[in-house]
Each structure stands twice: as C-alpha cells, then as structure tokens.
C-alpha cells in the first residue's frame, strides 16, 4: 500500500528509473523499514496496468524510466486528503504527511484539519465507551480505551505543533 503511494510521490516531481526509486523510497519510508526491490517492480507493473504511471523509454544508460500520469497525480492527492483512522496504523498519517511535504503539496492545512476531525471523532466515541466501561466495572476495557485515548492525545498534540509551526 505505502509503496504504491511512495512511488507516486517520488514520480510527482520528476521521472525516475527503478533503482533510483528503490533508493529514494527507503529514505522516504524510513520509519517503515526497508522495501525489497521485487516489491518496487511488481508495484510499478500494477501502476502501469492501471495507467497511473507510464514509461517514456530508457535513459542514456538503458535503464527504463517511469513517469507519473495525470490520473496518478489525482490518485496520490486523493490519498493525501483522506484522513487516517487510528487502527489502520500500516497506512499512518506520518507517512502521508512526509509524502505531502516531499511534493510541496499545497493543501497540507486541509489534510491536517481533516485528520484532526477524525481524531476528535474517535476521541468523542471512545470517551463515551470508556465511561460506559467504567460504570459497568469493566476495568480491562476501561484501561485499554484509556491507552488508546493517550495515543490519540499525542497525535492531536503533534498536529497542533505542525499547525503552529506552519503558522509562525
């Protein structure tokens, strides 16, 4: 999942060949560990099949180049604007935000606002469940929900920090 959007991010500004993509993607997804080269090429095949990426030919060293298509850009921007729920951590917001920074995405503020709304909705729902667990004497559920809420608090604080630094 993240490899697909990582590739689209890297191709957003310029064409690359496969080996370059592999190197860059490791640094873009640094929080996520290394990606194996096979995964890059199968993802590229799928992107070409779906007409999000094409190949304009080879570079002067006979390496196949890849180019993002308008549909690929659209797909990437849709993904950037889609907020991430707490439980889908494999597709987390830090990664999405790093991709947005990489392409100088102009709607970062909108991404942050949507992400905050998603977190606030989860906070409101989980706090209600947490209170119910407390009233029912369900200690484990109460503590587990408290733990999740502490993570959400950290996420919300971080979003506020990004917003404040962007503003100043």
């Amino acid at each position, binding site marked *: 999942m993240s490899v697909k959007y990582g590739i689209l991010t890297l191709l957003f500004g310029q064409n690359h060949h496969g080996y370059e993509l592999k190197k860059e993607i490791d640094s873009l997804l640094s929080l996520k560990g290394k990606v194996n080269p096979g995964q890059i090429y199968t993802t590229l095949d799928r992107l070409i099949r779906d007409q999000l990426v094409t190949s304009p030919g080879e570079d002067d060293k006979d390496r196949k180049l890849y180019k993002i298509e308008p549909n690929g850009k659209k797909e990437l921007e849709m993904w950037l604007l889609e907020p991430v729920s707490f439980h889908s951590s494999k597709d987390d917001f830090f990664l999405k935000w790093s991709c947005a920074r990489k392409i100088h995405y102009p709607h970062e503020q909108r991404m942050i*606002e949507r992400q905050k*709304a998603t977190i*606030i909705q989860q906070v409101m*729902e989980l706090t*209600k469940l947490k209170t119910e667990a*407390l*009233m029912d004497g369900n200690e484990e559920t109460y503590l587990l929900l408290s733990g999740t809420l*502490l993570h959400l*608090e950290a996420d919300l604080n971080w979003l506020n920090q990004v917003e404040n630094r962007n503003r100043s």
Partner: protein
Amino acid sequence: MIHLEKIEKEFLQGQEKTSVLKGVDLEIKKGEFVAVMGPSGSGKSTLLQLLGGLDVPTEGKIEIDGSPLHQMKEKERTVFRRKNIGFVFQNYQLLPTLTVEENIAFPLHAEGKITSEKSRRVQELINSVGLKDVSNKRINLLSGGQQQRVAIARALIQNPAVLLADEPTGNLDREKAEEILALLSTFHAKHKQTIIMVTHDIFAAGFADRIILFKNGRIDQIISRKDDNYAQYLAHFMA
C-alpha cells in the same frame, strides 16, 4: 430543567460598560451532563456564576426547575443556591487551614447544628472521593488532585440537583484529571445530577452528552454526537 432566555450581562468598570454575555438562550434537561468550551474571556465563567445564582443577569430570565432566579431577592437566591446547587470553582476555593472533613462539612453549618445523619453523609462522601486516609489533614498539605476531590465532595454535600464545575481539571495532569472526571461520571450515573462543566480540554468534554461552544458572549453551536459532521465543526472551532 434549566431554562435561560435572552441572558445579557454587563459589567461596569468605572464609566466603561463591558458587555460579557450578549443574548444567551439555552435549555438543559434534568440529569444532563453538558460541557462548555470556548476561548478564554468568552464569558464561560460568567455564565456559570449566573447559573449558580452567585450573580444576576443584566437582562433575561434564568429558571431552574421552574424557580425564577432572576426574580429572587439576594437572600432568597442564597437559600435556593445552598439547597439546589453545588459549585466547583476553578481554583478550588477551599479553606486552607481547615481539615478535609471540616471543609466538606462547611456548607452544613449555615443550616445550624450538624445532625448525626449529616455527619454520616460527610463520611460517606469522604469515602466515595477516596480521601478517607487524609480526612483529618489540613487542606494546604494536600496535592491539587486531592484538593479538587475535596471541592467536589463539598459541592455535593447537600445533594444538589445541579452541579456546576469551572475547569475542574484545568490544573491537573492527565491521570489526575481522569480520576476527577471518573468521579464526576460516577456521581452522575448514580444520582443523575445535572452537570455543567466548563473545560478547555476535548478529552474532558468527551465525558459530556452535549458540548456548548461559546464564543464572544454567545452560543456559537451546540454539539451532540448524533449530529452529522460534529467532529469537523469541533476541530474547526478549536483551531
């Protein structure tokens, strides 16, 4: 039920009039738990003071369970307040040189002699806020979280139908705040008081049934989990 109609409040500072509440209409059902959020200076504490009968509006009506607070003379209002309303203040407002037990029992002295039934009530509250071990300690020897528990017990001593709390977790860390909110929720579940809590903290406001968003002396919006897009609205309001 609490009914506010066209509430306005002005303060006179020298010759200058400042309008702090600019037309507040609000209904709160009996037994509801509502939170009030909004920027500082927007009039949240002033609203709570009026709800608690500590002050009167310049214009408008306040009725609590049918009793018109805005029409009462000061003495009558004081009696009504002691009987029906518990107040947890922003900075506790306890008597520092008295003990935990003496602070909690303090509101009872206004009524004369403390009966054995009433001292049982004091002990019961001391236990339910978890202060049994420190009940004979002086207030100024307690932590902030403990002081806030004393303030809550004191507010509840007369079994009020309405509990007003002004930023009850404002000075506490997350874990201590959570204990205070859990305590309020437990009392609310058991005794169905109407609770109105001012807070800056969305993690505290989440305990409430509804959230009143207050801005510049007016109600900007009332948020309930059932509404569409309430979270977008809250996120935008808090930005």
